[in-house]
């Protein structure tokens, strides 16, 4: 086991007290900035990256790993407690997590998120250490037709987030698809629905939509109801910690989340969001308490949160082996590597073996550090809900808009953010689910460009989708998943008639 020896050497370097200190500082900083509402991991890492430049490559990479995992974790805290995910990958976490927090179970929700992140990151980091070279060979075989098949599956699973009415759920999805059209088409350069506004040429930023719909929409809705049904968030009911039942219901979703998140995260165009949707649907289908979904089911936090973190580690596979950043956070990481004259790519493991293995070892250490530092902090984060509501929501809005201002300080962007807030308010008011809008915005453009790339390569022949086994199988799965509920219903009726 060559990899194992390297890994031990990496640990040997990373375990030095001073490096442990760097890891600790990194985790703390990452969590502290990541926990601010509306500030996702990408922005967190981008903001804190310069801090690490002052160190030598080894020390800074270790701090960097801490910031990365800390930022990932911090993002889910606000999603759960305040229903304000700072990035699209925590949107699903907010669905069940915030319900739990509202019924006074914020502590267990945070704990299962932390433990799930830990377990998933552990598995995925091990996968990164031992499977990366093999996995990347499989991943690059994924053609546009295969991605299109994957998108179809993801689209079908979105229905799990629809809530009570398919009509309203589909309308939310359609709104997301419509927003996804806006901007310059990547393949042809044609502008769609931009109405000549240059700020729309790059399309709608997913973070702007997520923060607008969730943070601002939520604030508007809470305010509108506050005077009549003052809904004071309940800080804690029962224990902050997970009960035996919580453990029992969490461990399988953690493992499944990791199994879904890591391979999809490793795909060059997989992304972190799709695994969270898939995991949520899987948990809902497999749960023994499906009726609790939408009311605060712990599986719905454990699975997606594990998937999110596993895909974050998975996205390091194409980053390290191909130099290919697959998420905004990974793009910032790449910039970080280049700062030290390290060009991630096929030669990285050869030319900078010691650094790479030190980084992987630091990821393990940062992961443990995160758990050690953050589990005790769960109790503290839950106290956030004790802040009086006027100040709490005022603070949320200040940080949420600051995240947008920091990424793109333009008035148009802020107007969009506020506009999405109003849309989010109306949707909440008339019981339209919010998550499908974000799903539509993410999946729509991806499905569009992958399908068109496939057709461009086949010179317009649609059969290309069925000539490749991967895409053919995934399209069949998607169609089956779409039709299965109807078929089962039909079968059940048949059986009834036979009786």
């Amino acid at each position, binding site marked *: 086991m060559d990899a194992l020896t390297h890994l031990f050497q990496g640990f040997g370097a990373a375990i030095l007290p001073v490096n442990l200190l760097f890891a600790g500082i990194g985790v703390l900083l990452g969590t502290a900035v990541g926990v601010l509402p509306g500030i996702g991991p990408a922005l967190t890492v981008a903001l804190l990256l310069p801090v690490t430049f002052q160190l030598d490559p080894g020390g800074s990479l270790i701090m960097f790993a801490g910031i990365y995992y800390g930022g990932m974790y911090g993002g889910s805290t606000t999603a759960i407690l305040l229903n304000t995910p700072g990035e699209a990958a925590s949107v699903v976490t907010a669905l069940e997590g915030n319900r739990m927090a509202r019924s006074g179970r914020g502590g267990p929700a945070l704990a299962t998120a932390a433990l799930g992140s830990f377990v998933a990151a552990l598995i995925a980091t091990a996968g990164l250490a031992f499977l990366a070279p093999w996995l990347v060979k499989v991943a690059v*075989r994924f053609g546009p037709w295969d991605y299109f098949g994957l998108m179809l599956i993801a689209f079908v699973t979105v229905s799990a987030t629809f809530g009570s009415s398919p009509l309203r759920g589909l309308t939310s999805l359609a709104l997301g698809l419509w927003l996804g059209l806006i901007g*310059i088409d990547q393949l042809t*350069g044609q502008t769609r629905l931009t109405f000549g506004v*240059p700020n729309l040429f790059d399309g709608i930023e997913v973070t702007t939509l997520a923060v607008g719909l969730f943070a601002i929409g939520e604030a508007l809705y809470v305010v509108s109801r506050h005077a009549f049904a003052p809904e004071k968030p309940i800080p804690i009911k029962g224990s902050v910690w997970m009960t035996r039942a919580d453990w029992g219901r969490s461990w399988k979703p953690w493992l499944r989340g990791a199994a879904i998140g890591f391979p999809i995260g490793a795909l060059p165009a997989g992304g972190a969001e799709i695994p969270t949707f898939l995991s949520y649907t899987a948990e809902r289908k497999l749960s023994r308490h499906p009726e609790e979904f939408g009311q605060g089911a712990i599986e719905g936090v454990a699975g997606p949160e594990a998937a999110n973190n596993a895909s974050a580690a998975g996205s390091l596979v*194409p980053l390290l082996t*191909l*130099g*290919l950043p697959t998420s905004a956070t990974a793009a910032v990481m790449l910039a970080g590597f280049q700062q030290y004259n390290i060009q991630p790519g*096929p030669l990285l493991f050869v030319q900078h073996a010691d650094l790479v293995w030190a980084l992987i070892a630091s990821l393990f250490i940062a992961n443990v550090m995160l758990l050690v530092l953050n589990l005790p902090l769960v109790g503290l984060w839950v106290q956030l809900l004790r802040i009086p509501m006027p100040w709490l929501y005022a603070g949320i809005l200040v940080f949420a808009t600051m995240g947008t201002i920091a*990424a793109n300080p333009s008035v148009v962007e802020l107007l969009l953010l506020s506009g999405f807030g109003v849309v989010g308010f109306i949707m909440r008011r008339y019981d339209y689910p919010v998550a499908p809008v974000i799903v539509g915005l993410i999946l729509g453009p991806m499905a569009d460009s992958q399908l068109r790339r496939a057709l461009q390569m086949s010179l317009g022949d649609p059969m290309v989708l069925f000539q490749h086994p991967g895409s053919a199988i995934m399209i069949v799965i998607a169609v089956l998943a779409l039709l299965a509920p109807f078929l089962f219903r039909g079968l059940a009726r048949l059986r009834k008639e036979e009786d």
Partner: protein
Amino acid sequence: MSFFKSRLLAACIAVAASVSPVVAQDLELSIIAPAGAGGGWDSAARALQDAMVKSGNARSVQVQNVPGAGGTVGLAQFAQQARGADDQLLVGGITMVGAILTNNSPVNLTSVTPIARLTGDPLVVVVPKNSPHQTLADLTAAIKGDVANTIWAGGSAGGADHILAALITQAAGADPSKVNYVAYSGGGEALAAMLGGQVTAGISGYGEWQGQIESGDLRALAISYPEPIEGIAAQPLKAQGVDVELVNWRGVFAGPDIPDETKAALSTAIANTVKSPEWQEILKARGWTDYYAPADDFAAFITSENERVGTTLRAIGLAK
């Protein structure tokens, strides 16, 4: 593993962050990077920030990201806010020239003041390692034979990669408007399509694919630079009988209508920075090629690039 011998001192410096520039010239600049964090112009702006402060050619430099529409959003904002200003710079490059034309941007590069061209990186034409095309001649023959089935992968539509694919197609004797160019969000995503063997050939910045070229996963057929570059085995297109050159250049601009002395002061500061060892070190670290040209040469260069890029984009059908 010497780099692990870090001391606590380093940690203290890290936490205190960088607020200790060498006091030299009194320039307090703000540079607009018309792209999001992590992109090419962003890293160029931050590299310039780093080099100017460390080499003592500016007291402080702030980088501001104004992303959008191939840099034209940043350009439009800059043209407005930096009019006559002595402390504002904008980073731009060849992609912006194309974006101005395809987006019908009301503001173009003639409305700002060119200060200096900084870097110019070669684009590289590659094929997957088990491609039947061994040489550039094989590839151009394939283009001439069947332009539709010669599938290219590269960055976004209308960008430098796309322009080069069209120019090569034209030089090979085929209709450039028929080029089958599959656009990806950047060199990275296109790389996966190359390695997966889904396309015939690919174009990207040399630095982006350097690792795969050196490891043998990709075969570099040619670079788009006019002359051979030291350390790059692939020869220029021109040297191989395809009369095409394209350099992915980046430069800095000052606002419109600045007084001559401001222009001179900014030009001098940049010229001194470019000569500094700090800047040279950054070029080496990032794999950028020095392509410095002073203000007047740069202005003339932009006029000719505008002409050339415009002609190609009209031929592809992306600009009117």
